[in-house]
């Protein structure tokens, strides 16, 4: 049994390392040092990766503390057993502050080194650094040296540089291998990832950018390189090199030996996302644009941090002689960016938002369910006890009452306003230019109408009931609007997998992919995505749902408006005189034609009731 200490779990690379090591080696025991708040998640993740408890031990700890924050006896036991150590834990956020970055990356690494020093049996310390410790250095960068660059782009790079420097200082006492991965992206076959930074920021930018600009300028250049490496390759290198006895004291650039220039990468991303090619611009104009983007609060608009643009100006290339040697030695194939870009981009387009909104959507589903049950009860109640339910509704739910007032006086105005609002919603919810094809107009019409209805009812519920005391409606209305606001960011996706329907909480939102399953690399089979889904096909796919929802919705609204037909308006809102008038006179109210069905039923029913012999006998008519 080989005992291994691993920091930085859960994480993209560490998970891949665990997964791939298990495929090759069966006699490994992992000691995982996990932040206390992540222990539950880590255990769940391990279970998903199909690890049994005999293969790992999870210790709540913190690498920034002495002894990694572990209890004394745990630390002693681990130190006695550990033969190999992987130090992956790091602060990878490029916008992190110097304090945060140094705390984890520098101070944490020091603690890990101290801990490893105390291990008697340790034969290998694998330290994961980053290619970008080279800072702003240009040209071919060698593997086994660490020249001090003139400057760094951010605190992440600086802290990683300093950490690697410390590791190098201890190289003579600890048998160390340093891995310097480039930007890690998803799986080279399926693109699966849980971490969206680096090139994913560009993908995100294109997702909205391709809607805004038909022609996209190429902000990449031919003398800068975007070095990305798929996580499965990085994991394989880490596993094979880190668990072997070779390459001690060496540094490996876990990078693409033949990376695309940023111009090539830009083109590839844009082409795959939008189906169009971008056009080249002069270097001066490009610099100007980059400068403008850098100084403009772009991240507010696009979610693209200006700092990430810096990497478009990265002129360093990385020598990979050690890596190639390792590949030859262990039979690994260096990845080709032309091959792993498509799955990576597809996966990103499909899954980025789910990761961010998974919790929100789960919460939202719960609300949907709750309200659907409430509404269903109401509707059923209307069928069997219309009077009682209407009375009940008007007592503490403004819907019935407000609906009466609305239909009597205000029906048309809010409806008009809501249609205008609906236009905005409908257009905002479209993925692309709306008027490309005639069918669009039809579908937009449907969305438009339903969005209008949704807004109308949401707004009236919120408005009426907030100040009129209908707590339930006010709550529902506000929740509608709130969720609409929060979820509107979920909607615009090129693939359009979340079927955000504007009917609010009444009906289930349709999630085509179950994000909880597809998010994990444990996905059983490759995701079958037919390229970038064309807009029109997406709309056509939604059409039956729009129709079905429309039908159900209209049924519901008829039920909702029933109180005003039934002559049960909101008593608590009325003066006594009004109440009397409403209560007693179903027939001749203003707009009596609205209540014609009721009047008809009342007249016919009473006709038949009062022609019965017992009644006629009671008044002496027969």
């Amino acid at each position, binding site marked *: 049994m080989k005992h291994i200490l691993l920091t930085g779990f859960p994480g993209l690379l560490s998970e891949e390392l665990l997964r791939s090591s298990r495929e090759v080696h069966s006699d490994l025991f992992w000691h995982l040092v996990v932040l206390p708040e992540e222990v539950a998640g880590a255990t769940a993740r391990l279970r998903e990766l199909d690890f049994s408890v005999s293969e790992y031990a999870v210790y709540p700890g913190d690498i920034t503390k002495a002894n990694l924050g572990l209890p004394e006896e745990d630390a002693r036991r681990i130190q006695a057993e550990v033969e190999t150590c992987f130090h992956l834990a790091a602060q990878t956020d490029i916008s992190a502050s110097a304090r945060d970055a140094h705390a984890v990356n520098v101070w944490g690494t020091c603690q890990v080194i101290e801990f490893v020093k105390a291990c008697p049996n340790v034969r290998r310390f694998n330290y994961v650094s980053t290619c970008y410790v080279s800072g702003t250095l240009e040209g071919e960068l060698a593997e086994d040296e660490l020249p001090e660059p003139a400057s760094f782009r951010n605190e992440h790079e600086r802290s990683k540089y300093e950490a690697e420097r410390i590791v190098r200082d201890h190289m003579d006492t600890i048998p160390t291998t340093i891995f310097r991965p480039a930007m890690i992206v998803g799986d080279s076959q399926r693109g699966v990832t849980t971490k969206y930074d680096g090139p994913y920021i560009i993908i995100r930018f294109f997702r909205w950018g391709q809607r805004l600009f038909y022609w996209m300028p190429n902000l990449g250049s031919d003398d800068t390189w975007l070095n990305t490496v798929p996580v499965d390759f990085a994991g394989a290198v880490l596993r094979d090199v880190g668990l072997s006895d070779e390459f001690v004291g060496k540094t490996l650039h876990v990078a693409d030996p033949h990376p695309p220039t940023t111009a090539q990468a830009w083109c590839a991303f844009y082409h795959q996302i939008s189906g169009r090619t971008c056009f080249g611009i002069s270097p001066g104009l490009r610099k100007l644009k980059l400068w403008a983007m850098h100084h403009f609060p772009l991240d507010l608009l696009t979610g693209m941090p200006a700092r990430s643009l810096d990497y478009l100006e990265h002129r360093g290339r990385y020598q990979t002689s050690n890596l190639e040697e390792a590949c030859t030695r262990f039979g690994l194939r260096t990845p080709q960016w032309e091959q792993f870009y498509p799955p990576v981009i597809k996966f990103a387009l499909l899954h980025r938002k789910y990761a961010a909104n998974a919790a929100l959507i789960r919460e939202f589903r719960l609300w949907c369910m709750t309200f659907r049950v409430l509404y269903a009860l109401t509707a059923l109640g209307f069928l069997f006890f219309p009077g009682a339910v209407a009375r009940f509704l008007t007592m503490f739910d403004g819907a019935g009452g407000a609906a009466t007032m609305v239909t009597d006086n205000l029906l048309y105005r809010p409806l008009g306003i809501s249609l205008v609002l609906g236009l905005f919603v409908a257009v905002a919810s479209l993925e692309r230019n709306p008027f490309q094809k005639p069918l669009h107009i039809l579908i937009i019409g449907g969305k438009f109408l339903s969005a209008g209805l949704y807004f109308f009812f949401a707004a009236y519920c919120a408005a009426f009931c907030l100040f009129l005391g209908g707590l339930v409606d006010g709550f529902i209305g506000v929740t509608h609007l709130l969720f609409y606001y929060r979820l509107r960011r979920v909607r615009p996706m090129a693939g359009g997998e979340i079927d955000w329907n504007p009917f609010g909480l009444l009906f289930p939102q349709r999630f085509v992919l179950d994000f909880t399953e597809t998010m994990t690399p444990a996905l059983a089979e490759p995701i079958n995505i037919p390229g970038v889904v064309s807009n029109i096909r997406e709309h056509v796919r939604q059409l039956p749902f729009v129709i079905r929802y429309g039908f159900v919705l209209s049924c519901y609204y008829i039920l909702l408006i029933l109180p005003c037909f039934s002559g049960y308006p909101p008593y608590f809102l009325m003066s006594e*005189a009004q109440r*009397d008038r409403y209560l007693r006179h179903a*027939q*001749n109210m*203003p707009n009596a034609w609205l209540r014609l069905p009721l009047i008809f039923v009342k007249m016919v029913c*009473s006709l038949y009731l*009062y022609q019965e012999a017992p009644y006629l006998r009671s*008044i002496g008519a027969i």
Partner: protein
Amino acid sequence: MKERPEGILFGTEITGYRKESCEICVIGSGPGGAAAAEVLARAGHDVLMIEEGPIPEKGARLTPQKAMQRYYRDSGFFATLWPVQVPIPTGRVFGGTSVINSGTCFHTPERLFDRWERDLGVAFDRKAWREVEGELDEDLHVSPCPVERMSPSDRIFAEGLERLGLSGGKPLSRCEDGCDGQGLCCFVCPNEAKQAMHLNLLPRALEQGMRAIVETRALGLIHDGARVTGVVCQTSAGARLVVRAKRFILAMGALETPDFLLKSGFRRRYPAIGRNLAIHPASKVLAEMPESIGAWKGVPQAYCYEHPDYPDVHFEGIFLPPSLGSASIPFLGSDLCDWMGVYDRLSAFGFYVSDSQYGRLIRMPGMRPLIRYTLTEKDLDGFYFAIKTVARAHFAMGAKRVLLPIADPSDVCSSEDELEQRFRRENMHPKRVYSMAFHPLGTCRFAGSLDKGVVDQFGRCHRHDNVFICDGSAVAGPLGVNPQITIMAFSRLAARHMA
């Protein structure tokens, strides 16, 4: 009337495609059509009458609802559409509305001749008119209703008026022969005492050789723009029937004749079609008396009154049998039960006002005629006065409470003081007054010129020599009285002129 009188064809038995020809085709068998047909048949013309409704069943003792379903147009649910909904019950039966009305008969008030002459440029021969009215009185056995046969509610109101110190009330003249006061005038007289057309003029015309096709609906006129040559009908068995004739008399009533003409494409030629609709908006006040009176026994519409200060307001008795009464009480639930439980103690008296403005009938393809009508402030003034007078008369007779025909909290008052205090003029609103209307008139009215009317004083259409209109639509309203005798006199005069 016999079960299968001679000369009557039943639309239920006519199938396939059929052609008929005659000299004069009368469409509609109401008072107007019957009066004209009788004169023409007597004069030896070949007359064919077309009627949409069935022949009323004899002695069937129909419940009021059944009678409404069978013999009322649209089962009695026809109403003005907008902005106020006023139901206008009319008949759809052999004999027309005369089968289902109360049987009251009035001579044409003298002031109307003046008005027609002044406003419409139509001068009738008043002497001939009065002569015809005399003849009709004899034909229809018109006589004042004896007090003992009156409904108790009429007697109560009459006495109440006396106690209020108001005089001028009088028994109504009715066309009846052998009435025993069953109180079902409006739902086909069970012992055929009320002299409706199917008991009176129509059998006489049939004896004179008139033919009639019942249960057959006229769909439209066949014309080449200038001259009308035929009428297309549909029998209730679904067959097409084409009637060719030299002259046509339209007598379908004030609501159907304009619709029929508009459907036939006469809109451009007669701009006045459908305009000038007068319907006497009417209502009633219910009162709960201290003791049981059973007001549905006896002739409900047997007494009338007019106040000299309000010449446009006409009081006439009305009372509905219990089951229909439940539909006319506008309440739901316990309120309705409350009032229906004491229905035997209820007394009622009605009133109608002469409209101060006209409604308009509009035709939409595929729909029943749509009517625009509203109540004016002047009408509401009349309503207010009438409601108050009736309520006061009943209070004078010791009524425990009255039910006023308004949708307002003040609709029930239990004393005269309360009435004075709570029932105010500002409570009256066109949409909050329960009303019905009974005498639609004037939609194709006679007038000297085409812009004011459709026909001349002899019922002839201004632009079509061979089309005559002899029904309520030709008579310019409002009359202020029951228009049956007026319509019949007009028709008879027109037919005599024709013959």
